[in-house]
Protein backbone atom coordinates (compact mmCIF):
# COMPACT_ATOMS: atom_id res chain seq x y z
CA UNK A 1 0.00 0.00 0.00
CA UNK A 2 1.44 3.29 -1.07
CA UNK A 3 -0.01 6.80 -0.85
CA UNK A 4 1.70 9.90 -2.15
CA UNK A 5 0.63 13.17 -0.55
CA UNK A 6 1.40 16.16 -2.76
CA UNK A 7 1.46 19.29 -0.61
CA UNK A 8 0.45 22.51 -2.32
CA UNK A 9 1.20 25.57 -0.19
CA UNK A 10 -1.61 28.11 0.07
CA UNK A 11 -0.23 31.49 1.09
CA UNK A 12 -3.35 33.56 0.63
CA UNK A 13 -7.11 33.30 0.04
CA UNK A 14 -9.03 35.90 -2.01
CA UNK A 15 -12.59 36.19 -3.26
CA UNK A 16 -12.80 36.35 -7.07
CA UNK A 17 -15.08 35.75 -10.07
CA UNK A 18 -13.43 32.44 -10.84
CA UNK A 19 -12.43 29.75 -8.36
CA UNK A 20 -8.85 28.62 -8.98
CA UNK A 21 -5.43 28.24 -7.42
CA UNK A 22 -2.57 30.24 -8.95
CA UNK A 23 0.93 30.76 -7.55
CA UNK A 24 -0.08 29.70 -4.05
CA UNK A 25 -3.15 31.94 -3.97
CA UNK A 26 -6.61 30.39 -3.62
CA UNK A 27 -9.26 32.41 -5.45
CA UNK A 28 -12.83 31.60 -4.41
CA UNK A 29 -16.08 32.40 -6.19
CA UNK A 30 -18.25 32.80 -3.12
CA UNK A 31 -21.59 32.50 -4.97
CA UNK A 32 -20.63 29.17 -6.50
CA UNK A 33 -19.65 27.76 -3.11
CA UNK A 34 -22.73 29.05 -1.30
CA UNK A 35 -25.07 27.72 -4.02
CA UNK A 36 -23.82 24.21 -3.18
CA UNK A 37 -24.31 24.74 0.54
CA UNK A 38 -27.86 26.06 0.09
CA UNK A 39 -28.86 22.91 -1.82
CA UNK A 40 -29.63 21.53 1.62
CA UNK A 41 -33.15 22.55 2.72
CA UNK A 42 -32.06 22.71 6.34
CA UNK A 43 -29.68 25.60 5.72
CA UNK A 44 -31.42 28.96 5.43
CA UNK A 45 -28.42 31.16 4.89
CA UNK A 46 -24.66 30.85 4.46
CA UNK A 47 -21.68 33.02 3.60
CA UNK A 48 -17.89 32.79 3.51
CA UNK A 49 -15.31 34.86 5.37
CA UNK A 50 -11.53 34.80 5.29
CA UNK A 51 -9.38 34.81 8.44
CA UNK A 52 -5.63 35.32 8.18
CA UNK A 53 -2.93 34.48 10.79
CA UNK A 54 -2.09 37.52 12.92
CA UNK A 55 -5.35 39.31 12.08
CA UNK A 56 -7.53 40.59 14.96
CA UNK A 57 -10.33 38.08 14.35
CA UNK A 58 -12.31 35.72 16.57
CA UNK A 59 -14.13 32.78 14.97
CA UNK A 60 -16.94 31.27 17.08
CA UNK A 61 -18.80 28.96 17.55
CA UNK A 62 -16.49 26.67 15.56
CA UNK A 63 -17.95 23.30 14.61
CA UNK A 64 -15.34 21.60 12.44
CA UNK A 65 -12.02 22.30 10.76
CA UNK A 66 -11.34 20.51 7.47
CA UNK A 67 -8.32 20.42 5.16
CA UNK A 68 -9.18 20.48 1.44
CA UNK A 69 -7.66 17.51 -0.38
CA UNK A 70 -8.30 15.81 -3.71
CA UNK A 71 -7.74 12.25 -4.90
CA UNK A 72 -5.59 12.53 -8.03
CA UNK A 73 -4.75 8.87 -8.66
CA UNK A 74 -6.05 5.61 -7.21
CA UNK A 75 -9.48 4.36 -6.24
CA UNK A 76 -12.13 6.38 -4.44
CA UNK A 77 -12.62 10.05 -3.65
CA UNK A 78 -12.44 12.40 -0.70
CA UNK A 79 -14.58 11.63 2.39
CA UNK A 80 -15.72 8.20 1.16
CA UNK A 81 -19.19 7.15 2.26
CA UNK A 82 -20.15 10.76 2.95
CA UNK A 83 -19.25 12.91 -0.07
CA UNK A 84 -17.70 10.35 -2.45
CA UNK A 85 -18.81 6.78 -3.05
CA UNK A 86 -17.77 4.27 -0.45
CA UNK A 87 -14.75 2.81 -2.39
CA UNK A 88 -11.67 2.06 -0.33
CA UNK A 89 -9.20 4.96 -0.36
CA UNK A 90 -5.62 5.25 0.86
CA UNK A 91 -3.57 4.37 -2.22
CA UNK A 92 -2.34 6.33 -5.23
CA UNK A 93 -1.91 10.09 -5.10
CA UNK A 94 -3.69 12.79 -3.15
CA UNK A 95 -3.11 16.53 -3.40
CA UNK A 96 -3.27 18.48 -0.15
CA UNK A 97 -3.84 22.21 0.32
CA UNK A 98 -1.27 22.94 3.02
CA UNK A 99 -1.49 26.06 5.16
CA UNK A 100 -5.24 26.47 4.91
CA UNK A 101 -8.48 25.03 6.23
CA UNK A 102 -12.22 25.25 5.81
CA UNK A 103 -13.78 26.13 9.17
CA UNK A 104 -17.52 25.59 9.75
CA UNK A 105 -19.10 28.02 12.14
CA UNK A 106 -22.41 29.60 13.12
CA UNK A 107 -25.37 28.90 15.38
CA UNK A 108 -25.19 25.18 15.80
CA UNK A 109 -25.83 23.41 19.01
CA UNK A 110 -24.45 26.34 20.90
CA UNK A 111 -22.99 24.95 24.07
CA UNK A 112 -20.25 22.69 22.83
CA UNK A 113 -18.45 24.50 20.07
CA UNK A 114 -15.23 26.41 20.24
CA UNK A 115 -13.28 29.59 19.63
CA UNK A 116 -10.38 30.23 17.27
CA UNK A 117 -8.55 33.54 17.80
CA UNK A 118 -6.21 34.48 14.94
CA UNK A 119 -3.96 36.65 17.15
CA UNK A 120 -3.19 37.29 20.83
CA UNK A 121 -2.85 34.80 23.70
CA UNK A 122 -5.77 32.64 22.49
CA UNK A 123 -4.05 32.10 19.13
CA UNK A 124 -1.09 30.49 20.87
CA UNK A 125 -3.31 27.69 22.17
CA UNK A 126 -4.78 26.60 18.83
CA UNK A 127 -2.86 25.31 15.81
CA UNK A 128 -5.62 26.65 13.54
CA UNK A 129 -4.58 30.27 14.16
CA UNK A 130 -1.59 29.53 11.92
CA UNK A 131 -3.71 28.65 8.89
CA UNK A 132 -5.41 30.77 6.25
CA UNK A 133 -8.99 29.94 7.12
CA UNK A 134 -11.92 29.98 4.74
CA UNK A 135 -14.80 30.19 7.19
CA UNK A 136 -18.24 28.88 6.21
CA UNK A 137 -20.85 30.59 8.38
CA UNK A 138 -24.18 28.74 8.26
CA UNK A 139 -27.64 29.55 9.61
CA UNK A 140 -30.25 26.79 10.00
CA UNK A 141 -33.88 26.99 8.95
CA UNK A 142 -36.19 27.27 11.95
CA UNK A 143 -37.88 24.22 13.37
CA UNK A 144 -35.28 21.55 12.67
CA UNK A 145 -33.99 19.25 15.37
CA UNK A 146 -30.34 19.85 16.42
CA UNK A 147 -29.16 16.43 15.14
CA UNK A 148 -30.63 17.07 11.66
CA UNK A 149 -28.97 20.43 11.54
CA UNK A 150 -25.67 18.99 12.82
CA UNK A 151 -25.67 16.62 9.84
CA UNK A 152 -26.45 19.45 7.44
CA UNK A 153 -23.64 21.63 8.82
CA UNK A 154 -21.20 18.72 8.85
CA UNK A 155 -21.91 17.81 5.23
CA UNK A 156 -21.83 21.49 4.15
CA UNK A 157 -18.26 21.85 5.48
CA UNK A 158 -17.16 18.63 3.78
CA UNK A 159 -18.76 19.73 0.49
CA UNK A 160 -16.93 23.07 0.54
CA UNK A 161 -13.62 21.38 1.40
CA UNK A 162 -14.16 18.93 -1.48
CA UNK A 163 -14.97 21.77 -3.90
CA UNK A 164 -11.81 23.68 -2.87
CA UNK A 165 -9.69 20.52 -2.98
CA UNK A 166 -10.88 19.82 -6.52
CA UNK A 167 -9.19 23.07 -7.65
CA UNK A 168 -5.84 21.45 -6.87
CA UNK A 169 -6.39 18.38 -9.06
CA UNK A 170 -4.00 19.35 -11.86
CA UNK A 171 -1.44 21.30 -9.86
CA UNK A 172 2.17 20.31 -9.32
CA UNK A 173 2.86 19.85 -5.60
CA UNK A 174 5.46 21.98 -3.79
CA UNK A 175 6.50 18.89 -1.85
CA UNK A 176 5.65 15.21 -2.10
CA UNK A 177 5.69 12.80 0.84
CA UNK A 178 5.35 9.05 0.34
CA UNK A 179 3.69 6.79 2.92
CA UNK A 180 4.31 3.13 2.25
CA UNK A 181 3.31 0.05 4.18
CA UNK A 182 3.91 -3.62 3.55
CA UNK A 183 1.45 -6.35 4.45
CA UNK A 184 1.86 -8.12 7.81
CA UNK A 185 4.02 -10.99 6.57
CA UNK A 186 6.41 -8.71 4.68
CA UNK A 187 6.60 -6.21 7.51
CA UNK A 188 7.54 -8.95 10.00
CA UNK A 189 10.12 -10.33 7.55
CA UNK A 190 11.54 -6.91 6.70
CA UNK A 191 12.11 -5.84 10.29
CA UNK A 192 12.59 -8.96 12.42
CA UNK A 193 14.58 -7.07 15.05
CA UNK A 194 12.47 -3.97 15.44
CA UNK A 195 9.71 -3.66 18.08
CA UNK A 196 6.22 -4.03 16.56
CA UNK A 197 4.15 -0.96 17.44
CA UNK A 198 0.45 -0.33 16.86
CA UNK A 199 -1.83 2.63 17.39
CA UNK A 200 -5.25 2.47 19.06
CA UNK A 201 -7.21 5.49 17.88
CA UNK A 202 -10.23 6.09 20.10
CA UNK A 203 -13.17 7.81 18.42
CA UNK A 204 -15.76 9.91 20.26
CA UNK A 205 -19.10 8.09 19.81
CA UNK A 206 -21.29 8.98 22.77
CA UNK A 207 -24.26 9.88 20.59
CA UNK A 208 -26.41 12.99 21.16
CA UNK A 209 -24.23 14.98 18.71
CA UNK A 210 -21.03 13.34 19.93
CA UNK A 211 -20.29 11.16 16.92
CA UNK A 212 -17.58 10.17 14.48
CA UNK A 213 -18.10 8.61 11.07
CA UNK A 214 -15.91 5.99 9.38
CA UNK A 215 -16.64 5.60 5.65
CA UNK A 216 -20.01 7.16 6.51
CA UNK A 217 -20.78 4.64 9.27
CA UNK A 218 -21.70 6.00 12.68
CA UNK A 219 -18.81 4.53 14.70
CA UNK A 220 -20.92 3.89 17.81
CA UNK A 221 -22.60 1.13 15.83
CA UNK A 222 -19.35 -0.67 15.00
CA UNK A 223 -17.06 -3.08 16.75
CA UNK A 224 -13.39 -2.23 17.18
CA UNK A 225 -11.68 -2.77 13.84
CA UNK A 226 -8.59 -1.97 11.79
CA UNK A 227 -8.00 0.70 9.17
CA UNK A 228 -4.99 1.66 7.10
CA UNK A 229 -3.39 4.93 8.25
CA UNK A 230 -3.41 6.14 4.64
CA UNK A 231 -7.18 5.66 4.44
CA UNK A 232 -7.48 8.14 7.31
CA UNK A 233 -5.32 10.62 5.34
CA UNK A 234 -7.84 10.35 2.49
CA UNK A 235 -10.73 11.42 4.72
CA UNK A 236 -12.13 8.01 5.73
CA UNK A 237 -12.80 9.37 9.25
CA UNK A 238 -14.80 12.58 9.69
CA UNK A 239 -15.88 14.39 12.82
CA UNK A 240 -19.57 14.88 13.64
CA UNK A 241 -18.75 16.08 17.10
CA UNK A 242 -20.21 18.94 19.06
CA UNK A 243 -18.19 18.21 22.20
CA UNK A 244 -15.79 20.31 24.26
CA UNK A 245 -13.68 22.24 21.81
CA UNK A 246 -10.30 21.70 23.43
CA UNK A 247 -10.07 17.94 23.03
CA UNK A 248 -12.39 16.99 20.20
CA UNK A 249 -10.68 15.68 17.10
CA UNK A 250 -11.79 17.76 14.15
CA UNK A 251 -11.71 16.26 10.68
CA UNK A 252 -8.42 18.19 10.16
CA UNK A 253 -6.90 16.34 13.13
CA UNK A 254 -7.84 13.00 11.60
CA UNK A 255 -6.45 13.99 8.18
CA UNK A 256 -3.18 15.10 9.83
CA UNK A 257 -2.96 12.70 12.78
CA UNK A 258 0.46 13.44 14.35
CA UNK A 259 0.73 10.00 15.97
CA UNK A 260 0.45 8.37 12.54
CA UNK A 261 2.83 10.95 11.07
CA UNK A 262 5.49 10.21 13.73
CA UNK A 263 5.03 6.43 13.53
CA UNK A 264 5.62 6.59 9.77
CA UNK A 265 8.79 8.64 10.37
CA UNK A 266 10.12 6.05 12.82
CA UNK A 267 8.95 3.06 10.74
CA UNK A 268 11.82 0.83 9.64
CA UNK A 269 14.31 2.82 11.74
CA UNK A 270 13.47 2.40 15.42
CA UNK A 271 10.21 0.46 15.17
CA UNK A 272 7.90 -1.47 12.87
CA UNK A 273 4.61 0.45 12.53
CA UNK A 274 2.24 -2.50 12.19
CA UNK A 275 -1.18 -0.84 12.03
CA UNK A 276 -4.03 1.25 13.33
CA UNK A 277 -6.91 -0.09 15.44
CA UNK A 278 -9.99 2.15 15.68
CA UNK A 279 -12.31 1.78 18.64
CA UNK A 280 -15.29 3.70 20.00
CA UNK A 281 -16.38 5.41 23.23
CA UNK A 282 -20.01 4.43 23.84
CA UNK A 283 -22.37 5.24 26.71
CA UNK A 284 -23.31 1.68 27.69
CA UNK A 285 -20.94 -0.18 30.01
CA UNK A 286 -21.31 -3.41 28.00
CA UNK A 287 -20.16 -1.51 24.87
CA UNK A 288 -17.13 -0.14 26.69
CA UNK A 289 -16.21 -3.63 27.89
CA UNK A 290 -16.76 -5.26 24.49
CA UNK A 291 -14.88 -2.61 22.51
CA UNK A 292 -11.87 -2.58 24.83
CA UNK A 293 -11.79 -6.41 24.89
CA UNK A 294 -11.65 -6.22 21.11
CA UNK A 295 -8.79 -3.66 21.12
CA UNK A 296 -6.77 -6.00 23.30
CA UNK A 297 -7.63 -9.05 21.16
CA UNK A 298 -6.54 -7.28 17.97
CA UNK A 299 -3.33 -5.99 19.58
CA UNK A 300 -2.49 -9.53 20.66
CA UNK A 301 -3.46 -10.99 17.29
CA UNK A 302 -1.12 -8.51 15.55
CA UNK A 303 1.63 -9.69 17.89
CA UNK A 304 2.42 -6.15 18.99
CA UNK A 305 5.16 -5.25 21.46
CA UNK A 306 3.85 -1.78 22.15
CA UNK A 307 0.74 0.32 21.61
CA UNK A 308 0.06 4.06 21.63
CA UNK A 309 -3.52 4.89 22.67
CA UNK A 310 -5.06 8.30 21.99
CA UNK A 311 -8.32 9.40 23.60
CA UNK A 312 -10.99 11.83 22.45
CA UNK A 313 -13.01 13.86 24.92
CA UNK A 314 -13.04 13.38 28.68
CA UNK A 315 -15.17 12.15 31.57
CA UNK A 316 -16.62 8.70 30.94
CA UNK A 317 -14.27 8.13 27.93
CA UNK A 318 -11.52 8.08 30.59
CA UNK A 319 -12.94 4.64 31.45
CA UNK A 320 -12.66 3.47 27.82
CA UNK A 321 -9.08 4.76 27.83
CA UNK A 322 -8.16 2.97 31.05
CA UNK A 323 -9.92 -0.25 29.94
CA UNK A 324 -8.01 -0.22 26.65
CA UNK A 325 -4.74 0.44 28.46
CA UNK A 326 -5.26 -2.15 31.19
CA UNK A 327 -6.48 -4.94 28.92
CA UNK A 328 -3.67 -4.44 26.40
CA UNK A 329 -1.07 -4.30 29.20
CA UNK A 330 -2.48 -7.54 30.61
CA UNK A 331 -1.67 -9.20 27.27
CA UNK A 332 1.99 -8.36 27.98
CA UNK A 333 2.02 -5.42 25.55
CA UNK A 334 3.41 -2.08 26.70
CA UNK A 335 1.20 0.99 26.31
CA UNK A 336 1.51 4.76 26.32
CA UNK A 337 -1.71 6.76 26.66
CA UNK A 338 -2.29 10.27 25.31
CA UNK A 339 -4.98 12.20 27.18
CA UNK A 340 -5.62 15.62 28.71
CA UNK A 341 -6.54 16.74 32.21
CA UNK A 342 -9.49 18.26 34.05
CA UNK A 343 -7.59 18.96 37.21
CA UNK A 344 -9.53 22.03 38.35
CA UNK A 345 -8.62 25.67 37.83
CA UNK A 346 -5.78 25.33 40.36
CA UNK A 347 -4.60 22.03 38.82
CA UNK A 348 -4.82 20.22 42.15
CA UNK A 349 -7.72 17.83 41.53
CA UNK A 350 -7.61 14.31 40.10
CA UNK A 351 -6.91 14.69 36.36
CA UNK A 352 -8.89 11.75 34.99
CA UNK A 353 -12.19 10.20 36.06
CA UNK A 354 -10.62 6.74 36.04
CA UNK A 355 -7.18 5.34 36.76
CA UNK A 356 -5.16 2.13 37.00
CA UNK A 357 -1.59 1.33 38.11
CA UNK A 358 -0.95 -0.22 34.65
CA UNK A 359 -1.44 3.24 33.08
CA UNK A 360 2.10 4.19 34.02
CA UNK A 361 3.14 5.96 30.82
CA UNK A 362 0.99 9.01 30.18
CA UNK A 363 1.30 11.97 27.84
CA UNK A 364 -0.95 14.93 28.64
CA UNK A 365 -2.25 17.61 26.30
CA UNK A 366 -2.64 20.03 29.22
CA UNK A 367 -5.17 21.04 31.87
CA UNK A 368 -8.43 22.10 30.20
CA UNK A 369 -9.66 23.86 33.37
CA UNK A 370 -6.88 26.45 33.32
CA UNK A 371 -8.35 29.95 33.08
CA UNK A 372 -7.37 32.17 30.17
CA UNK A 373 -8.20 35.79 29.35
CA UNK A 374 -8.80 36.48 25.67
CA UNK A 375 -8.65 40.19 24.74
CA UNK A 376 -11.30 41.70 22.46
CA UNK A 377 -10.88 41.23 18.70
CA UNK A 378 -11.70 43.81 16.03
CA UNK A 379 -13.78 41.42 13.96
CA UNK A 380 -16.05 38.53 14.94
CA UNK A 381 -16.80 35.77 12.46
CA UNK A 382 -20.00 33.98 13.55
CA UNK A 383 -21.48 35.18 16.81
CA UNK A 384 -20.37 35.64 20.42
CA UNK A 385 -23.93 34.94 21.61
CA UNK A 386 -22.94 31.52 22.92
CA UNK A 387 -19.62 32.34 24.64
CA UNK A 388 -21.15 32.19 28.16
CA UNK A 389 -22.70 28.83 27.39
CA UNK A 390 -19.91 27.03 25.55
CA UNK A 391 -18.22 24.36 27.72
CA UNK A 392 -15.40 26.21 29.50
CA UNK A 393 -17.36 29.45 29.63
CA UNK A 394 -19.55 30.67 32.47
CA UNK A 395 -22.19 33.31 33.07
CA UNK A 396 -20.26 36.55 32.53
CA UNK A 397 -17.42 34.99 30.48
CA UNK A 398 -18.03 37.50 27.72
CA UNK A 399 -17.26 40.92 29.18
CA UNK A 400 -18.68 44.22 28.02
CA UNK A 401 -15.49 45.23 26.20
CA UNK A 402 -15.60 41.99 24.18
CA UNK A 403 -12.85 40.23 26.12
CA UNK A 404 -13.47 36.72 27.43
CA UNK A 405 -12.53 35.02 30.67
CA UNK A 406 -12.96 31.28 30.36
CA UNK A 407 -11.38 27.89 30.83
CA UNK A 408 -9.01 26.66 28.16
CA UNK A 409 -11.71 24.13 27.22
CA UNK A 410 -13.32 26.83 25.11
CA UNK A 411 -10.48 27.00 22.55
CA UNK A 412 -10.65 24.61 19.59
CA UNK A 413 -7.82 22.06 19.72
CA UNK A 414 -6.08 23.54 22.79
CA UNK A 415 -5.58 20.27 24.73
CA UNK A 416 -5.83 17.85 21.79
CA UNK A 417 -5.27 14.24 22.75
CA UNK A 418 -3.42 13.26 19.59
CA UNK A 419 -0.74 15.73 20.63
CA UNK A 420 -1.70 18.17 17.87
CA UNK A 421 -1.10 21.14 20.15
CA UNK A 422 1.67 22.83 22.05
CA UNK A 423 0.75 22.21 25.67
CA UNK A 424 2.20 19.34 27.67
CA UNK A 425 3.91 18.60 30.96
CA UNK A 426 7.05 16.84 32.08
Amino acid at each position, binding site marked *: MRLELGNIDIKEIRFADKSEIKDGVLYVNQEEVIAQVLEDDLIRDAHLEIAVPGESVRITPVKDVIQPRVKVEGPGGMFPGVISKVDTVGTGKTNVLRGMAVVTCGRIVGFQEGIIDMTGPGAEYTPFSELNNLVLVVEPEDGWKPHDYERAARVAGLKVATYIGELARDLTPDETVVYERANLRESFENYPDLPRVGYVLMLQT*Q*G*LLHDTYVYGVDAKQTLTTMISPTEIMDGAIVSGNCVSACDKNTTYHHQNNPVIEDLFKAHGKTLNFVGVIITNEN*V*YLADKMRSSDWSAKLAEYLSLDGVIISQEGFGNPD*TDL*IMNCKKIEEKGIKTVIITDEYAGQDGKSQSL*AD*ADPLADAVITGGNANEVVILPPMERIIGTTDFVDKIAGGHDGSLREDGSIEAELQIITGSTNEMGFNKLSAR
Partner: protein
Amino acid sequence: MVKEIERAGIPVVHMCTVTPISMTVGANRIVPTVAIPHPLGNPNLPNDEEKALRRRLVDKALKALQTKVDDQTIFE
Protein backbone atom coordinates in the same frame (compact mmCIF):
# COMPACT_ATOMS: atom_id res chain seq x y z
CA MET B 1 -20.27 12.85 47.73
CA VAL B 2 -20.67 9.11 48.28
CA LYS B 3 -17.66 9.02 50.58
CA GLU B 4 -18.51 12.16 52.52
CA ILE B 5 -22.06 11.00 53.31
CA GLU B 6 -20.76 7.59 54.43
CA ARG B 7 -18.16 9.33 56.57
CA ALA B 8 -21.08 10.93 58.41
CA GLY B 9 -22.33 7.42 59.23
CA ILE B 10 -25.08 7.06 56.61
CA PRO B 11 -24.78 4.13 54.17
CA VAL B 12 -24.91 5.07 50.48
CA VAL B 13 -25.75 3.20 47.29
CA HIS B 14 -24.08 4.63 44.21
CA MET B 15 -26.31 4.04 41.19
CA CYS B 16 -24.23 4.57 38.07
CA THR B 17 -23.56 3.32 34.57
CA VAL B 18 -19.78 3.28 34.56
CA THR B 19 -19.18 1.06 37.57
CA PRO B 20 -15.38 1.01 37.12
CA ILE B 21 -15.30 4.74 37.93
CA SER B 22 -17.45 4.08 40.99
CA MET B 23 -14.93 1.41 42.06
CA THR B 24 -12.03 3.82 41.47
CA VAL B 25 -13.59 6.57 43.59
CA GLY B 26 -14.28 4.09 46.39
CA ALA B 27 -18.06 3.54 46.61
CA ASN B 28 -18.99 0.51 48.74
CA ARG B 29 -22.44 -0.36 47.38
CA ILE B 30 -22.80 0.03 43.61
CA VAL B 31 -25.90 -0.62 41.49
CA PRO B 32 -25.25 -0.61 37.70
CA THR B 33 -27.71 1.49 35.69
CA VAL B 34 -28.80 1.76 32.06
CA ALA B 35 -26.65 4.26 30.12
CA ILE B 36 -24.75 7.47 30.74
CA PRO B 37 -27.31 9.84 29.17
CA HIS B 38 -30.23 8.06 30.91
CA PRO B 39 -29.00 6.12 33.96
CA LEU B 40 -32.39 5.46 35.54
CA GLY B 41 -34.58 5.15 32.46
CA ASN B 42 -34.69 3.93 28.90
CA PRO B 43 -36.35 6.19 26.32
CA ASN B 44 -36.55 3.25 23.89
CA LEU B 45 -39.09 1.44 26.07
CA PRO B 46 -42.85 2.05 26.23
CA ASN B 47 -43.88 4.06 29.31
CA ASP B 48 -45.19 1.13 31.37
CA GLU B 49 -42.08 -0.96 30.74
CA GLU B 50 -39.83 1.95 31.57
CA LYS B 51 -41.70 2.50 34.82
CA ALA B 52 -41.20 -1.16 35.72
CA LEU B 53 -37.50 -0.86 34.90
CA ARG B 54 -37.17 2.19 37.14
CA ARG B 55 -38.94 0.44 40.00
CA ARG B 56 -36.65 -2.62 39.64
CA LEU B 57 -33.60 -0.37 39.88
CA VAL B 58 -34.85 1.50 42.93
CA ASP B 59 -35.88 -1.76 44.64
CA LYS B 60 -32.44 -3.15 43.94
CA ALA B 61 -30.82 -0.05 45.42
CA LEU B 62 -32.98 -0.24 48.55
CA LYS B 63 -32.08 -3.90 48.96
CA ALA B 64 -28.39 -3.07 48.53
CA LEU B 65 -28.70 -0.43 51.22
CA GLN B 66 -29.88 -3.08 53.67
CA THR B 67 -27.21 -5.61 52.73
CA LYS B 68 -24.10 -5.88 54.86
CA VAL B 69 -20.89 -5.61 52.79
CA ASP B 70 -17.26 -6.28 53.78
CA ASP B 71 -15.74 -4.92 50.58
CA GLN B 72 -16.72 -2.80 47.54
CA THR B 73 -19.68 -4.66 46.05
CA ILE B 74 -21.46 -4.36 42.69
CA PHE B 75 -25.07 -5.53 42.94
CA GLU B 76 -25.63 -6.98 39.43
